[in-house]
């Protein structure tokens, strides 16, 4: 199953790789950032790419189609200054966030319920697989019919995508919980409530975070696609509108904005995941 490939197996973390610690190790403090060789190479790559783009535009290729960095960045900057970028980006973010909340929350609950019951899981499995493999973006026209082209459409699209990712991983996360772990907690006097909240959910959390790492960018993709197909705001709308009027500066500036958004969101997710799974990370101090 494609979702589970991103997940490292939870048990493997407890193998005895850690040195017998004799004193509480200090929390891995964030090492001060220092420029390294690979940072320099990365910078070079960017410079070379931009320079060859700038130099070839208008000479080797038609700059009506590709624009050029010296025009894209001023356009981008003018959006920053005018607040246009903030307006569209915040719309995209808000819808993606709401979609993430709704789809993720529902996915978590349904995943927990089905993960607990063998029988229900067996009944639902083929349906879920069918829906999981179906491209959710194909539902956008249907969603337009249902809820129109407003914010609801974008939230619904993001939610539909996120739901399946989170549900799938929660489901398998819950199923994966070691029976020994559950039994040991029950013998210690744990109730069904204890088992769910002290064993099942924390175990499934590794899987859920792996899902979120996919789901958060996918939520943004869902919103952007919905914005491109219908609507009057958002970064996807910016791209579609400028491309529709053959304004390549604006199109590239909007794509650049998406690039930055995606990058920042991914970094943020890494940070959150690392905090939440602290217990898992500090055996393999990278």
């Amino acid at each position, binding site marked *: 199953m494609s979702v589970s490939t991103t997940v490292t197996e*939870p048990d493997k*973390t*407890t193998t*005895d790789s*850690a*040195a*017998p*610690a*004799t*004193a*509480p*190790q200090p929390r891995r403090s964030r090492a001060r950032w220092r420029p390294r060789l690979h940072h320099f190479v990365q910078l070079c790559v960017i410079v070379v790419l931009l320079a060859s783009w700038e130099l070839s535009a208008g000479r080797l290729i038609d700059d009506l189609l590709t624009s050029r960095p010296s025009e894209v960045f001023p356009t981008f900057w003018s959006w920053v200054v005018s607040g246009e970028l903030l307006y569209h980006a915040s719309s995209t973010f808000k819808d993606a966030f709401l979609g993430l909340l709704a789809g993720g929350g529902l996915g978590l609950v349904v995943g927990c319920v089905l993960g607990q019951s063998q029988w229900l899981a067996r009944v639902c499995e083929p349906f879920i697989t069918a829906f999981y493999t179906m491209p959710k973006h194909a539902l956008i026209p249907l969603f337009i019919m249902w809820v129109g082209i407003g914010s609801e459409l974008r939230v619904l699209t993001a939610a539909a995508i996120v739901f399946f990712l989170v549900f799938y991983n929660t489901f398998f996360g819950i199923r994966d919980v*070691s029976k*020994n*772990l559950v*039994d*040991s*907690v*029950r*013998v*210690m*006097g*744990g*109730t069904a409530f*204890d088992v769910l909240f*002290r*064993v099942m959910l*924390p175990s499934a*959390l590794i899987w859920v975070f792996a899902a979120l790492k996919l789901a958060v960018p996918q939520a943004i993709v869902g919103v952007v696609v919905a914005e491109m197909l219908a609507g009057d705001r958002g970064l996807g709308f910016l791209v579609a509108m400028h491309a529709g009027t053959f304004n390549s500066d604006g199109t590239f500036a909007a794509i650049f904005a998406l690039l930055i958004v995606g990058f920042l969101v991914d970094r943020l997710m890494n940070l959150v995941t690392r905090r939440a*799974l602290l*217990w*898992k990370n*500090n*055996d393999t101090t990278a």
Partner: protein
Amino acid sequence: MTISTKETATSPQATEPRRVVFETRGMAVGFGDRPDVLADVDLKVHAGEFVALLGPSGCGKSTILNLAAGLLRPRRGEVLFDGRPITGVNTSVGYMTQDDTLLPWRTVAANVALPLRMRKVPKQRIQQEVSRYLAFLDLQHAAGLYPAQLSGGMRRRALLARSMIYAPELLLMDEPFAALDAQMRQQLHADLRRAVHSTQQTVLFVTHDLTEAAVLADRVLVIGGGPPGGVVAEFTIPFGAERDPATLPYEDGFARIQQELQEALTRARVPKQKEEE
């Protein structure tokens, strides 16, 4: 340092009638539609006693522990705890297996505190108990560490602390030290004997290692002769409660006990022919 949660008796007398904590009567057990693994098993564990179940791998020793924990039901016969049949999961026992069942997202202290937290013990009591047990098992310095940061021996001691902290009436141990190296195992044998002695903990201990059984237990039941298997021999180990597992193998008479256990274990490997009681 000692832990005394129960009345400290001076020396448990074998002749004195003691309360039976765990008992099976004519018990038979099996899995699925396959034949019985164990049949006609009658055994008793008295309060304060350390009983070892010794037998070859796969003879059904662990099954007896699962019955006592209420995770499994017998096919026939009775399984009694404190004189009453076990109906659900038995929360009056502590259960320590070969598996690492520490919750990896909880620190050592939080893991050891878990049974008390689930039993709604007041916070302050929990703190006292946790630090007492951590100190007793030499884990104070590891309180804030996660299981992944511990060595195998420390994890075992943390599990032992967690299984004993709520003073269960019976501590079930299923080859708890099998994965450790010999030296570490010896250390843990000493720790276990010390903890068991100072709390008067009743223990039912499963092992396939006859030296481990002889070093730790007051009484050894040899299981085997199957299928279906049963109790093929019973030995009382005479060395008393304050023994030191490290030096016990050099005591007079230990070699003879070892040899007798070895013979019983060999007999336990062949199918039961009702050759002796």
